[in-house]
C-alpha cells in the first residue's frame, strides 16, 4: 500500500469517528446504515467479484444473521453479547448448507436454485408467527445497555465494519484469495493446477455468509428491529446493484455503491413513493454505460494513464 492510500484511509477513519460529534442524530443513523450495507455488499463481493459465484440471494444470510441475533436476545437468557457471535455463525452454517446443496450446479443453476431456496427461508420466516413474529417481524429488541444509544450503536457498527473489512481484505490478499480469483477467471485451469475448486468455493460461501450475518447483527443494534423483508430476494438484487454500481472488481466499490444507493434512497423517498422506478432507471444507466462501476471506471482511467506507453514500447 502506498503512503497516500494509508493517509487517505486514516483521514477517512478520523472523519467517520468524528461524525457523531457534529452530525444530527438522523445522519448518524444513516451513516450506520450505510456502513452495515457496505459491509453486506462487500461480503457479497467476496464471492461475486472475487469468487465469480452467482450468489443471487445474499440477503438471506443477512436476514439469518439478524434473526439469529434477535432470537438469541429475546428467546434465551444467555449473555447478550453472545448473540452477536451466534447470529453470524448461524449465517455461516446456513451458507454451508446452501453451498453443499448448490455447489455442484453450474453457474446459472446455482444462482437460480439459491434464489429459490432463499425464498423458502423467507416464506418460513414470514409465516412462523410464534417464533419469528411473522410478517410483523420483531420490534423493540432488547439491546445490551452499552450499545443502546444511537452514538454507541454507531461506534459499534463502525468498529465491527472496519474490522470485518480488514479481515476480508486480508483474505482477498491471501493465497486463498488468489486461488479464489483464479477460480473466478478459469475454474478448469484451477482444477488442473491442483486446486479443489468446489471446496474453495464452499469456504468462500461460508465466509461470505458469516460477514453477511455480521451485517445483519449490526442492523439489530442500529435499528432494534427485524422483519421478513430483510431476507426477501429483491433486497439481494439491490445488494448486487450496490456491488455493480461501485465496481465489483474493486475492494471498496461495494461500500461506495452502498453509500450512493442508501443515501439516494433516503432522499428520494422523502419526495416520492417511486423509489423503485428511480433505482431501476439508475441501474439501466449503470449497466449500459458503467459496466465496471464507478471505481472500476476510475481505475481504468488511472491505469490507462501509464499502462499504454509500456505496451506500445514492447
Amino acid at each position, binding site marked *: 500500500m502506498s503512503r497516500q492510500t494509508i493517509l487517505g484511509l486514516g483521514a477517512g477513519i478520523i472523519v467517520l469517528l468524528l461524525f457523531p460529534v457534529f452530525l444530527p442524530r438522523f445522519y448518524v443513523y444513516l451513516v450506520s446504515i450505510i456502513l452495515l450495507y457496505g459491509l453486506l455488499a462487500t461480503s457479497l463481493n467476496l464471492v461475486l467479484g472475487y469468487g465469480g459465484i452467482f450468489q443471487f440471494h445474499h440477503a438471506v444470510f443477512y436476514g439469518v444473521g439478524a434473526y439469529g441475533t434477535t432470537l438469541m436476545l429475546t428467546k434465551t437468557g444467555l449473555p447478550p453479547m453472545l448473540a452477536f457471535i451466534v447470529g453470524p455463525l448461524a449465517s455461516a452454517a446456513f451458507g454451508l448448507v446452501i453451498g453443499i446443496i448448490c455447489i455442484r*450446479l453450474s453457474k*446459472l443453476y446455482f444462482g*437460480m436454485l439459491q434464489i*429459490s431456496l432463499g425464498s423458502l427461508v423467507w416464506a418460513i420466516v414470514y409465516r412462523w408467527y410464534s417464533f419469528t413474529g411473522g410478517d410483523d417481524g420483531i420490534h423493540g429488541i432488547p439491546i445490551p445497555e452499552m450499545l443502546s444509544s444511537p452514538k454507541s450503536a454507531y461506534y459499534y457498527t463502525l468498529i465491527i465494519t472496519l474490522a470485518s473489512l480488514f479481515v476480508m481484505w486480508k483474505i482477498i490478499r491471501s493465497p486463498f484469495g488468489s486461488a479464489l480469483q483464479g477460480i473466478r477467471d478459469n475454474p478448469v485451469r484451477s482444477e488442473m493446477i491442483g486446486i479443489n475448486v468446489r471446496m474453495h468455493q464452499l469456504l468462500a460461501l461460508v465466509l461470505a455468509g458469516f460477514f453477511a450475518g455480521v451485517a445483519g447483527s449490526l442492523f439489530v443494534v442500529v435499528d432494534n428491529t427485524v422483519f421478513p423483508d430483510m431476507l426477501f430476494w429483491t433486497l439481494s438484487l439491490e445488494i448486487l*446493484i450496490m456491488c*455493480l454500481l461501485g465496481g465489483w472488481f474493486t475492494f471498496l466499490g461495494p461500500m461506495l455503491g452502498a453509500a450512493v444507493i442508501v443515501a439516494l434512497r433516503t432522499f428520494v423517498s422523502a419526495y416520492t413513493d*417511486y423509489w*423503485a*422506478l428511480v433505482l431501476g432507471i439508475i*441501474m439501466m444507466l449503470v449497466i449500459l454505460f458503467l459496466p465496471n462501476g464507478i471505481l472500476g471506471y476510475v481505475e481504468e482511467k488511472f491505469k490507462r494513464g501509464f499502462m499504454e506507453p509500456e505496451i506500445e514500447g514492447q
Partner: protein
Amino acid sequence: MEAVYSIIPAGVLSQVFVGLSRTTILFIVASGLTLILGVLRIPNVAHGSLYMIGAFTAFTVTKLSGGGSAGFWIALVIAPLIVALISLIAERGMFQFLYEREHLMLLLLTFAFSLVFGDLVKLVWGGEYKSVPVPHIFQGFVPLFGGLPFPLYNLFLLLAGPVVAILLYLLTNKTKMGKIARAAAVDREMVGAVGINVSRVFATVFVIGCYLAGLGGVLVAPTVSVTLGMDHNLIIEAFLIVIMGGLGNIWGALLGALIFGLTQSLGILIWPKFGIIFPYLAVVVVLLFRPTGLLKSTW
C-alpha cells in the same frame, strides 16, 4: 389412521384438481420464461412483472367493456398482446444491444425492468386490490367424483393448459421460426453464419415468451385478487419450475409445473401452515439426482 383414510380421498382429489389448475397458470408463465432462457439465455426477472401487467390490463379491459362476460374474452385477446407490445419495445430499445453481456448483467437489467414495471403499475392502477369477475358461462361449480363441487373456471383452466402446450409444440417444432430458434439455442454463431437474421429471431422469441407471461396473468386474474407484488412470488415459482424441468426445455416446464403444483397442493393438505416447503424439497431432490433438471437442458 383409519380416520385419516376416511377423510383423505375426497380431500385429496379436490386438492389434486386445485393443484392441476394452478399448474396450468404456472406452466404457461414458466414456458415463456424457459423459452427466453433457452434461446436468448436471459434469466428474465421481469417476467413476473409482465404477468402482473397482464392481470391488471385484464382488469381494465374487462371494466371498460362493461364488466360483462364479453369483457373477459376481449381481455383474453387484447391483454397478452399489450404485454407483448411492451416487451417488444423493451427488446428493441434495450435488450438487443446487450445479448453479449454476462448473464449477471442481463439478470440485473431484467431486475431493473421489473422495478420500473412495478412502479409503473403502481402509478397507473394504484395500490388497491382489484378483482376480475369470472366470465358468466364459467360461474358456478360442477360436481366431480362423488359430488365434490369443483369450480367451473378451474375446469376451463385445466383445458387451457394442454391447448397452450400443443400450440407451443407446433410453434417450436413445426414452423420454420421454431426450428431456427431451437437451432439458435444450441449454436447462435452457426445460425448467424448461415445468413439468418438472428436478431429478428431473438426478438420474436422474446415477444412470444412475454406474451405467455401476459396470458398467464389474464387467466389467473379471475381466481385471485389482482394486486401489486403478485409478481414477486410467481417469478420465484417459475424459476423453480424451469430449473426443475431443465433450463430452456418447454416440456420440462410442463413437468416442473406439474410437480410443483401437485406437491404444493398436497403439501398444504399434509401440513397446512408450511405446505409451501414441499415443492422446494421436490426441487432439491430433483437437482440432487439430476443437476441440470429432469429433461435435457439447452445450457
